[in-house]
């Protein structure tokens, strides 16, 4: 069969999709215009389909494809074959009827635009599913039906049942959707393409592949959840809290049929195996029986119809599962028939509900008197459901019975299938009878909110059309749906459809006998319903909603328990885990280290080093021993800092020694400032077990780090550093290589580093700005503070030292490029000198004397450093390219000017600004000079 590219096929999907937006705009023009406008685009789409129909009936599949996401195997790809055509008629045709019906069903309070938008969205999704020629695209539309049905079911979102029902439907179909996705991906992987044509052409490949059972199961999970097959059937009755047009559409004709469609679509590649038979037919059979049985006991009209739908879907599934071609044809036929009679039944139920205010069959009685016309329509449809001759339901049921007789996969138990099918049919008759008798006859209505009457004229039109179809198909099957059934079956079977005759009369045969049995049995069951009801009342009615919610709830609670146990909000635990992880990462590779000592010659030990080590180790341990006495810990910390600086000095890093020293003092001042506001000592909090655990882990990490450090120190290394030494003077213009690296080779790091400092200062300022903190009036031993806030000697000496300190910082700054020093250290010296003034004199004394905006200083510093770096752009060099030259002036002699100095000035200013912003403002916390949050503008 040739496929012809057809550019208009896309519009079949696009038109409804665009139509989704229409009601949102036309809602304001009134109900009729809104309804009409909503119908236009789907109708147009249907017309397009009808125009294509001829080609399809002629055996020409229509295809259209556009590239979309090739790396995912996703193309925008459509095809129209017989199966699609059949479904499109159902979706668009019944869809249009539902649009009309809903016009009268919805009350003035309901948002019509929203409803139609959801409905059309759903319709588009269904159209998309049935026309998709790409597996992933099919899945996209599949999921879209889940989403839009969620919106439709929860349309009356203020009702708890609506929300829960919608959620349940979404969860179940969503889960199925994920399974389907996995299945489709597997199939795509087997075939090497997600193109449906390719997939359908490779049935044998798929069936023989090792992952076939998994792929089959996953795809069927998708189909069964969507089509409410046992054990996933429970969501469907709860979806009945949707407005009735939704039920008529989604739960009879379309969405639940999506699963059936999926089975039909993949019938050529997945069916035909025993596994398929076992899963599909048994699931179908169980669903058929269960649905039919429960339907009888539902007092809610829509509940009855819902379980009836489940039962009929089971029937169709069973047919597909039988692995017989005629059965598949029967299944397709029953899809049509079920759609027509069930949609009309739902609509009738909706009319009854709408006009009487109740759906409870215990209250609804004798409606024949009040709405004879509607009653007639409903009774015809119900009889079709029961499979009464002359109605379409009878035809497909006959085919069904005959197919149940033609299978033998269950071996000697195969006889059970026709028997159980008959039992199911009997119950089907029984609940149909109940629907007819209990609602339209059976005495007078009880306590109805409204007096029932016939509905508006046009509300009946959709029902009339559908019931007429039931009759016409039932009487002239071959003329009405013969061709359609043929092309659809052809699409499913992918070859010539086996001979079947669509006729009312096939002579006296076993299926007819089974039908008769079912009729009689159904009547008997209904007649004796009181006993059955009594029997059934012994069982607690298990509400699926409660079970489902219960399961979800317990999952949520379990999750919460897990989360609260693990995420207990204890930082100590988080750090402990972090350290454990670190330990694992650090220690395990070390197991590969055969020996710790490398080949690098070691430096002999000397006494000074030992002294330093003793000081360092003892002090470090002292901070641990006395960590609860904070001031003490602080003093020992200072010792550690001092020794570290000395170590840098010893190991040839004078710049580091200087920096470490100045940072260390600034840190101590900072910690002292903060300690004032914090408890001075704390109780023993950690249990001994925790302490030893912590000690163990930190000790082990210490061992790991120490080992690595030793191994590293004793291993020879060649680095890129020779370059720096070689180019420091010639390329960077300075003899202090470390400084040249900082301001030139790796000036970018330095720029980042001063930015960090600047940001930290801003952050601190931000922290302080909103701080309201308690100021202790006594020290930790209860002593009142000394009465001398500004000791005179300290004041005198501090202010005398200030110019000296500034001089030293200029000295350190200027020499940095060539010998140890530089902007950072100079900046810290300046800041500490100024802080010393604050300590000695206090904020009030300082305030009139220092009028620098530290914030500007920070910004200015970073700006100068950046501007210096950007300056190189004007010489067509990259950012941070430095410049230096030597000049000589008479008398003064030769001197160097370098852009790096300017960069370093930026560093200096930022450091001063940042440190002062932090420390000086922290000091102001307790005075009247505390920061007031600036009001803007």
């Amino acid at each position, binding site marked *: 069969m040739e496929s012809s590219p057809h550019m208009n096929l896309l519009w079949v999907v696009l038109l409804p999709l665009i139509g989704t937006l229409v009601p949102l705009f036309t809602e304001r023009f009134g109900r009729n215009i809104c309804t009409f406008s909503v119908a236009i685009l789907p109708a147009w789409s249907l017309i397009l389909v009808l125009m294509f129909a001829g080609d399809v009936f002629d055996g020409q599949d229509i295809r259209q494809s556009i590239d979309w996401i090739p790396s995912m195997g996703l193309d925008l790809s459509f095809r129209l074959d017989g199966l699609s055509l059949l479904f499109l008629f159902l979706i668009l045709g019944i869809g249009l009827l539902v649009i009309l019906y809903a016009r009268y069903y919805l009350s003035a309070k309901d948002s019509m635009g929203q409803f139609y938008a959801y409905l059309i969205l759903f319709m588009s999704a269904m159209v998309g599913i049935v026309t998709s020629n790409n597996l992933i695209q099919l899945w996209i539309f599949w999921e879209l039906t889940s989403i839009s049905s969620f919106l439709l079911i929860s349309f009356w979102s203020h009702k708890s049942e609506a929300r829960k029902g919608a959620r349940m439907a979404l969860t179940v179909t969503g889960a199925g959707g994920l399974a389907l996705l996995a299945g489709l991906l597997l199939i795509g992987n087997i075939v090497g393409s997600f193109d449906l044509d390719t997939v359908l052409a490779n049935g044998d490949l798929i069936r023989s592949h090792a992952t076939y059972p998994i792929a089959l199961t996953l795809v069927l999970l998708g189909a069964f959840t969507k089509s409410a097959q046992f054990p996933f059937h429970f969501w469907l009755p709860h979806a009945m809290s949707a407005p009735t047009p939704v039920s008529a559409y989604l739960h009879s004709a379309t969405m639940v049929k999506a699963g059936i469609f999926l089975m039909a679509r993949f019938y050529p590649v997945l069916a035909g195996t025993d596994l398929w038979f076992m899963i599909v037919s048994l699931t179908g059979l169980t669903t058929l029986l269960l649905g039919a049985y429960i339907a009888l006991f539902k007092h809610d009209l829509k509940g009855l119809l819902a379980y009836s739908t489940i039962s009929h879907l089971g029937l169709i599934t069973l047919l597909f599962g039988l692995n017989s071609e005629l059965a598949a044809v029967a299944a397709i036929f029953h899809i049509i028939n079920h759609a027509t009679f069930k949609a009309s039944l739902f609509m009738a139920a909706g009319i009854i509900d709408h006009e009487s205010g109740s759906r409870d069959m215990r209250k609804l009685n004798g409606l024949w008197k009040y709405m004879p016309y509607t009653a007639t329509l409903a009774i015809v449809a119900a009889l079709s459901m029961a499979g009464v001759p002359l109605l379409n339901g009878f035809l497909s049921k006959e085919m069904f019975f005959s197919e149940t007789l033609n299978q033998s996969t269950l071996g000697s138990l195969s006889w059970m299938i026709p028997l159980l099918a008959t039992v199911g049919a009997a119950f089907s008759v029984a609940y149909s009878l109940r629907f007819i008798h209990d609602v339209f006859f059976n005495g007078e209505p009880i306590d109805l909110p409204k007096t029932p009457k016939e509905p508006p004229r046009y509300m009946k039109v959709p029902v009339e059309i559908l019931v007429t179809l039931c009759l016409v198909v039932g009487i002239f099957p071959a003329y009405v749906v013969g061709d359609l059934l043929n092309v659809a079956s052809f699409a499913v079977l992918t070859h010539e459809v086996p001979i079947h005759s669509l006729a009312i009369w096939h002579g006296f045969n076993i299926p007819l006998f089974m039908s008769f049995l079912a009729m009689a049995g159904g009547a008997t069951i209904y007649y004796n319903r009181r006993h059955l009801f009594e029997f059934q009342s012994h069982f607690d009615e298990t509400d699926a909603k409660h079970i489902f919610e219960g399961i979800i709830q317990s999952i949520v609670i379990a999750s919460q328990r897990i989360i609260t146990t693990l995420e207990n909000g204890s930082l100590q635990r988080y750090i402990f885990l972090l350290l454990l992880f670190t330990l694992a990462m650090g220690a395990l590779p070390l197991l590969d280290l055969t020996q710790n000592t490398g080949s690098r010659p070691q430096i002999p030990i000397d006494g000074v080093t030992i002294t330093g080590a003793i000081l360092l180790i003892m002090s470090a341990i002292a*901070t641990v021993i006395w*960590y609860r006495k904070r001031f003490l810990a602080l003093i020992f910390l200072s010792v*550690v800092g001092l020794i570290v600086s000395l170590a840098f000095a010893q190991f*040839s890093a004078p710049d580091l020694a200087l920096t470490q020293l100045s940072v260390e003092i600034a840190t101590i001042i*900072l910690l002292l400032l903060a300690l004032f506001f914090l408890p001075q000592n704390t109780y023993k909090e950690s249990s001994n077990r925790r302490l030893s655990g912590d000690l163990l882990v*930190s000790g082990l990490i210490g061992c790991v780090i120490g080992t690595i450090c030793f191994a590293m120190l004793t291993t020879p290394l060649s680095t890129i*550093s020779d370059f720096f030494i070689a180019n420091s003077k010639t390329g960077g213009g300075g003899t202090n290589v470390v400084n040249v*690296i900082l301001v030139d080779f790796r000036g970018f790091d330095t720029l980042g580093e001063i930015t960090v400092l600047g940001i930290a200062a801003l*952050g601190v300022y931000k922290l302080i700005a909103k701080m309201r903190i308690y100021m202790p009036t006594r020290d930790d031993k209860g002593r009142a503070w000394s009465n001398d806030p500004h000791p005179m000697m300290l004041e005198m000496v501090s202010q005398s030292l200030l110019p000296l300190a500034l001089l030293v910082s200029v000295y350190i700054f200027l020499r940095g490029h060539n010998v140890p020093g530089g902007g950072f250290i100079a900046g810290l010296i300046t800041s500490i000198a100024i802080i010393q003034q604050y300590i000695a004199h206090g904020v009030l004394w300082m305030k009139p004397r220092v009028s620098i905006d530290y914030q500007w200083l920070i910004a200015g510093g970073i700006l100068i450093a950046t501007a210096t770096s950007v300056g190189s752009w004007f010489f067509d060099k990259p950012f941070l390219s430095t410049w230096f030259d030597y000049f000589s002036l008479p008398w003064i002699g030769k001197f160097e000017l370098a852009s790096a100095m300017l960069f370093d000035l930026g560093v200096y200013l930022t450091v001063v600004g940042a440190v002062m912003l932090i420390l000086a403002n922290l000091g102001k916390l307790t005075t009247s000079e505390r920061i007031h949050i600036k009001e803007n503008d």
Partner: protein
Amino acid sequence: MEAIYAFCVGILTTCGFFLVLRGRTFTVVIGLTLLSYAVNLFLFASGRLKLDGAAVLGQSAEYSDPLPQALVLTAIVIGFAMTAFVVILAMRSRADQGNDHVDGHIPVKTTKSRISEKRHS
């Protein structure tokens, strides 16, 4: 010499991490400071140890690796900035929550033991 150096780094690391694992902000800050000493020494060690080799041209015969020194300088500055922030954060936490526990509240267990401790004394 290398062994002693590595040992000191190990001790500092141990002490630092142990204090970081404590429950009070100030102690944690002390721990972080110790840890940053350890880190700086360690990072410095990546250039190996050298005596009399300051990387100032013309001052030594052989130069120590200047690059780790520059890295450590950056690390020191950043460490200082971070310490400054976390110290003030500790204060802010005390101000906002009324205690200086890292979790913003004293664990129930501790409160109990403290009461019993008081009772005993």
